[in-house]
């Protein structure tokens, strides 16, 4: 049986232990994948997030995968309008939101149509049966009713009259008319909480906090939640509960966080640790906008956010703020990174610190705005005019984004260079439990401020620290340090405009060397290779969870396989040549057409097996382990 078990932990007991709870059978399992699916107006993201919180506070390990359409409200009841939220909960250290759900909540025929093919053969289906009328069936493309025609044979099907139950429950709440049915996601949630033996307290507290100001809505949601829960208790058709016990995670304090929030917090932390005020400029774009939404809430950290007129202006404003002495960040997604390119080159040649966050999505062009992809790697590393190298680093999970944001700031400031930080839609919207770091022990970030003249009584803006080759940062307001910088090539040292051929060669070389030298200031790649393998699997970014789980799975099937993840994509970590030459074969799974594979081949002249896909969904760990087994010839 496949599992995405973390290989450092022993294999858990096989699931399927059955007990009873007052006549209701209780199936104990080590993990369960649950998917909420419905119309984009059905509140599935909310239901999923609430269930996630309840599971997290209960102590399960978990990972989530929200999936929503690019349209805010695609026509109701249609296939493009289906929104879903998947999570896996477990009593051990899982890494992924799971491959195939064991429980599927389908709020309408379209949701069933889209998601049924993923449901496990023994899966449980919770169906909002009243949505299965002729009109909705037609919109979803069903010729006959799947509830009646045998389509669902073999599944554990529960048809629930969710609309009637919701209407009954919310009577007297003060909500009326069509608004009544808006609470049906809470009904489904209540039922699911019962199924998993969780009480409704965590969710009810949240509802009171969130909707306290709109009392009728609060009451309706609480009533629906309770009604769903009670329906589980009283309805004889529900003779089955599922138990997933708390996970044994390393001791510590945990929170459940998504990647955009963790990244935002990392930027705030970098501001505190460097003493530089944070300035974040951005133009609304999915899936990066949430960073702007998050940061605007933290002005008491001195954070200034700026919603610019376009992507170019956002990059420009960030560069201006950097010149004025801020920790300057601009955030975007793929198309926006293209637009910011010219400004990033200016930041590069002027040698100004700046962070550019790219929350990658499916491309090219508008592509798949709400789906993850890793196809901006080339753009980040190479996508600028002129010789314009700069550091590129990538987050590999939601909580990792916190640390990576601080690291991006450390490099940007220490080396006076723009840094591109890659995240993606999977990391941005997915969440996982995060063991909180000891805030007090986070290292302070040094800032190479100019403090006075550096050449007699003059200040020369392009004199360098010979260790880092970084120039000094002179902030407007400092008397005696007045200077001009610009996009024209400048003379080494003075920074004056220079068209001298030798100087351009020198400056181009210095800028490249400065960035390449950062390799000596970053950690080596760590390889996990317990068995002396011949095959190394290399991941970067969000494929981390599926690749690590897939490697663990392949090992349990007997494969010898080593695993490493790369955070630093430009420059690569210093031990990359040694690592790569230690293995006969290198497999690189990526959500693109093999971009890292080509970079590794080109830079290290090593054969690489590229395993790539761009389907708008993360790799399943099963795909990774199958690929490993195929290469291993098993």
């Amino acid at each position, binding site marked *: 049986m496949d599992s995405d078990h973390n290989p450092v932990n022993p294999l858990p007991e096989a699931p399927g232990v059955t007990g009873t709870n007052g006549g209701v059978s209780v199936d104990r399992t080590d993990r369960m994948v649950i998917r909420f699916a419905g119309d984009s107006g059905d509140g599935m993201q909310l239901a999923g997030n609430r269930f996630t919180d309840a599971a997290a506070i209960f102590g399960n390990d978990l990972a989530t995968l929200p999936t929503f359409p690019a349209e805010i409200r695609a026509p109701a009841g249609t296939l493009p309008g289906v929104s879903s939220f998947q999570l896996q909960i477990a009593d051990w250290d899982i890494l992924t939101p799971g491959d195939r759900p064991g429980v599927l909540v389908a709020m309408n025929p379209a949701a069933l149509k889209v998601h049924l093919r993923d449901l496990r053969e023994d899966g449980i289906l919770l169906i909002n049966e009243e949505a299965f009328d002729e009109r909705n069936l037609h919109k979803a493309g069903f010729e006959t009713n799947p509830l009646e025609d045998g389509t669902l044979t073999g599944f554990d099907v529960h048809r629930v009259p969710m609309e009637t139950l919701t209407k009954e429950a919310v009577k007297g709440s003060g909500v009326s008319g069509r608004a009544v049915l808006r609470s049906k996601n809470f009904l489904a949630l209540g039922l699911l909480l019962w199924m998993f033996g969780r009480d409704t307290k965590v969710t009810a507290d949240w509802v009171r906090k969130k909707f306290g100001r709109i009392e009728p809505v609060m009451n309706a949601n609480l009533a629906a939640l309770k009604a769903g829960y009670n329906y589980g208790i009283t309805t004889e058709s529900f003779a089955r509960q599922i138990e997933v016990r708390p996970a044994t995670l390393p001791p510590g304090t945990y929170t459940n966080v998504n990647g955009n929030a963790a990244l935002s917090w990392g930027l705030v932390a970098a501001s505190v640790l460097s003493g530089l005020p944070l300035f974040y400029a951005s133009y609304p774009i999915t899936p990066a906008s949430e960073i702007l939404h998050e940061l605007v809430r933290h002005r008491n950290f001195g*954070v*200034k956010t700026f919603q610019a007129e376009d992507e170019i202006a956002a990059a*420009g404003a960030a560069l201006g703020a950097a010149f004025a002495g801020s920790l300057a960040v601009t955030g975007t997604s793929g198309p926006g990174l293209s637009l910011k390119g010219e400004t990033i080159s*200016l930041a590069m040649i002027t040698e100004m610190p700046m962070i550019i966050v790219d929350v990658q999505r499916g491309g090219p062009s508008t592509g798949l705005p709400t789906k993850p992809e890793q196809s901006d790697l080339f753009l980040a590393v190479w996508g600028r005019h002129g010789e314009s190298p700069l550091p590129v680093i990538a987050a590999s999970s939601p909580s990792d984004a916190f640390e990576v944001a601080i690291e991006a700031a450390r490099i940007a400031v220490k080396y006076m260079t723009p840094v591109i930080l890659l995240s993606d839609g999977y990391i941005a919207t997915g969440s996982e439990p995060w063991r909180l770091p000891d805030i007090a022990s986070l290292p302070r970030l040094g800032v190479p401020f100019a403090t006075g003249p550096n050449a007699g009584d003059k200040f020369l803006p392009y004199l360098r620290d010979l260790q880092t080759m970084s120039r000094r940062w002179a902030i407007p307001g*400092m008397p005696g340090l007045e200077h*001009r*910088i610009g996009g024209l090539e400048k003379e080494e040292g003075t920074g004056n405009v220079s068209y001298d051929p030798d100087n351009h060669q020198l400056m181009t070389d210095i800028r490249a060397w400065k960035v390449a030298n950062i390799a000596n200031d970053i950690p080596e790649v760590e390889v996990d290779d317990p068995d002396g393998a011949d095959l190394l699997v290399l991941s970067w970014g969000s494929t981390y969870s599926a690749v690590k789980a897939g490697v663990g799975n392949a090992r349990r099937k007997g494969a010898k396989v080593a695993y490493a993840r790369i955070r630093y994509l430009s420059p690569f970590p210093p031990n990359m040549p040694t690592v790569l030459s230690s293995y006969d074969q290198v497999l690189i799974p990526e959500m693109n057409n093999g971009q890292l594979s080509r970079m590794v081949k080109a830079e290290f002249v090593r054969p690489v097996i590229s395993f790539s896909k761009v389907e708008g969904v993360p790799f399943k760990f099963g795909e990774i382990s199958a690929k490993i087994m195929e290469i291993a010839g098993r």
Partner: protein
Amino acid sequence: MSYTRVDFQTDQEVRWCPGCGDYTILAAVQNFFAGLDIKRENVVFVSGIGCAARFPYYMNTYGMHAIHGRAPAIATGVAVANPALSVWVVGGDGDFLSIGGNHLIHALRRNIDMTLLLFNNQIYGLTKGQYSPTSEPGKTTKSSPGGSIDYPFNPVSLALGAEATFVARTLDMDRNHTTAMLKAAHAHRGSALIEIYQNCNVFNDKAFIQLTGKAERYANRIDLVHGQPVVFGADKEKAVVWDGGRATIADRNSVHPSQIIVHDAHAEDASAAFALSRLAHGPYGPTPLGIFRDVYRPVYDDALQEAVTRSTAARGSGDLGKLVTSLGTWTVE
């Protein structure tokens, strides 16, 4: 400590073409700063690309010569990050009105505290003579050998339409007028745009001859002065009056004094200023110079700074420990 003009000069050789109008503007600006009570280290000049955009290299302040069109956006970042700085943006008609048009209008509408000097020479000079977004229709250039078919912007009308709180127009040849406009713009908190008619003696010489020529200027130069009736001509024999909602020119003798428009630069409503800006669509015939509009509106950079201050006062300085636990936590023993 008081400065002289020399304090604002740099050791860089000024490289505009001999006879370029930019020289007189640079001298006017340097002299103006020497007379100000402002510390040199608190001044930042930002520019885009073009002949005018070389300006920061010649000003001994903080400065950035950036990329084409983006100077207002970059300067926005400077001003917002540190509202205590005096931020100046220099660009030409191509830089501000063509490639950077979007940034210009948004900086004006937000009322970012910065002064924008638009050197309008009605031509692309640095790229050696193509028609620009302010070139007159029919203009023959390298890129319009048969005459330009592009209809030009009226920069003052554009700025007023973009909700600018300060808009003025001046001439490179008139240093006293230029200095007066710089002074008023500097005194204005918020975005201030000064359109400076600037002669490009190489690619578009004498474009402003109707306003600078000894023979023509008295007939064509309409000096706007707040609180004064709008009259012009060698003997002030012309007047600007309302005609069915638009401003028009009349013989002063033919109208009653009460019909003459009294210029109100501080009017809340920009309609009258806009009407005056429509008297000429370029430096042809009678053209208004001076301050069209100068009103107060809350300034973006101040408002954002206040929001930060307020939030900090209300919630206390940020605490990272509280931030990372703000979504709720649980403990594993």
